């Protein structure tokens, strides 16, 4: 297993995809702060160039990293079935479960690195370029991030598992969109009419990440309360366990 993890690390960090994904994420958040700084410099009374606004913007968009987790999943599997590289690993006596779990572990580590760089860049550039609204909003963003980490890992694991289940990258993408985005959206809409759907929707990751409601001072997120924070973790961990189960079943049955 250790050898499998080592080799995955070697591959992921010796190819450009992870760097590219991290670079694009970092560039996007930096650009966002730079544009706001630029606007505040040349526009009188521009109200949005504050850390309160930008950090809250990211916190209301926690479903975007969930979408990006599928991209990380795609980087990790690297279309192994098409390139037939996994066939070599199996032919040389590696267990399919080890191959799968190594990908999950390395994918988690790569996602963590990508998240760390992007968020550090975002918070750092926010403090550097924009008006400081106080530490409360930074803490809120960090809390939101901590609440969503299991869900993002579940998103990445889901892509890896669905890739092996469908046998194709396109199959992985479409089934991921269906399960992770379309179903929660539909259930969420049905939740406006049916209570049962509303309760179910509150446990679905995509709906959980994108849920906000107005509070007395500012927005309330799924993770704003302690119970909500725990619920995010529980839902994420259930997602990880379910998708790992699916992935192991799929890779065991897949003929190469």
């Amino acid at each position, binding site marked *: 297993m250790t*050898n*499998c993890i*080592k*080799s995955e690390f*070697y*591959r992921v960090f*010796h*190819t*450009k995809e992870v760097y590219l994904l991290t670079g694009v994420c970092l560039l996007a958040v930096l650009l966002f702060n730079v544009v706001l700084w630029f606007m505040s410099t040349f526009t009188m009374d521009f109200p949005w160039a504050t850390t309160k606004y930008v950090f809250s913007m990211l916190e209301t968009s926690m479903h975007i990293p969930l979408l990006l987790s599928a991209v990380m999943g795609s980087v990790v599997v*690297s279309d192994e079935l098409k*390139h*037939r*590289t*996994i*066939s*070599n*690993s*199996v*032919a*040389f*006596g*590696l*267990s399919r479960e080890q191959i799968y779990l190594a990908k999950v572990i390395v994918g988690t580590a790569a996602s963590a690195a990508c998240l760390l760089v992007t968020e550090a860049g975002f918070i750092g550039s926010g403090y550097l370029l924009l008006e400081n609204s106080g530490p409360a909003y930074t803490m809120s963003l960090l809390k939101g991030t901590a609440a969503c980490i299991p869900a993002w890992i579940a998103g990445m694991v889901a892509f890896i598992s669905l890739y092996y289940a469908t046998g194709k990258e396109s199959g992985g993408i479409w089934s991921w969109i269906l399960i992770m985005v379309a179903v929660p959206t539909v259930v969420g809409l049905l939740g406006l009419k049916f209570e049962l759907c509303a309760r179910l929707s509150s446990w679905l990751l995509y709906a959980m990440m994108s849920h906000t409601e107005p509070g007395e001072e500012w927005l309330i997120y799924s993770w704003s309360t302690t119970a909500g924070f725990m619920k995010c973790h529980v839902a994420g961990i259930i997602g990880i366990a379910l998708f790992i189960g699916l992935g192991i079943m799929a890779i065991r049955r897949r*003929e*190469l």
Partner: protein
Amino acid sequence: MINSNVIIQTHQLTKQYGQALALDHVDLSIPKGSIYGLVGNNGAGKTTLLKILLGQVFPTSGSFSLWEAQEETAWRRNRRRCGAIIEAPGFFPNMTAVQNLEYYRLQRGIPGKEKVSEKLKEVGLADAAHKKFRQMSLGMKQRLGLALALLGEPELLLLDEPINGLDPAGIIEIRSLLQKLNREKHITILISSHILAELENMATDYAFLSRGKVIQQLSAKRLHELCGTYLEIRVTEPERYTALLEKELHQRDYKVLPDGTIHISGQLEDVTPYSKLAVEQGIGLLALERREMQLEDYYMHLAEDAQRR
């Protein structure tokens, strides 16, 4: 009972894809130290057999042993002693030759980083070490596949069409390398190829496959005996001529092809009695030629016979 001189033994191994039988109750024994040639047309079941042995596809029924192993965990342990190329060699397209081999070296826990460059040199790819896989020619990819197969110092090589895409010089080079590995390191090699002449120069044993069935297993020595000289005769009345062959010349070792051509095998130093027989009996002799049976001809005859049965 497993014979210790046999590395691979299959028993009634069968693989079905939907309604199609890719392997049909295959019984094979691969002796230790042999270069075992799998001969068969496309769709004969060669690749499916190799994939089952390597755990890439699952048999529908039947069993096999790999050394003494007869179940998945033990197969996996013994597969670590194998090297393989199945179908087109699979590598990460955006990684270089060195990076691809290093990835598998780490994955398989093979000690010594220098192994990678050693193997690249051994297969003649030292100059392309830093070339990306997607930029390589088919021949180079094939060589890289062989380097990967050799990376773990295997005791058994399973090679599916390993000379596909190589130029004539490359074919000779790889063939010499495989023979050297078999001779000096006693590596057993199970090799499939549709370029039958290539196996003819290398294999010590053969299995002929057709439509998923093993139609014959034999040693190279026996094959050479069977593939010896034969007489090809075309006459105006084949049925009468063959009856006379048996009656007058006591020759029963012959075969009549669908077009009426007669093939006579055996000791054929003097061909005069065969022409004389036709002339004396008033049968028109259209052609009489001494021929050498090649492996390819032999396989074609076997496959035709198997299809007729």
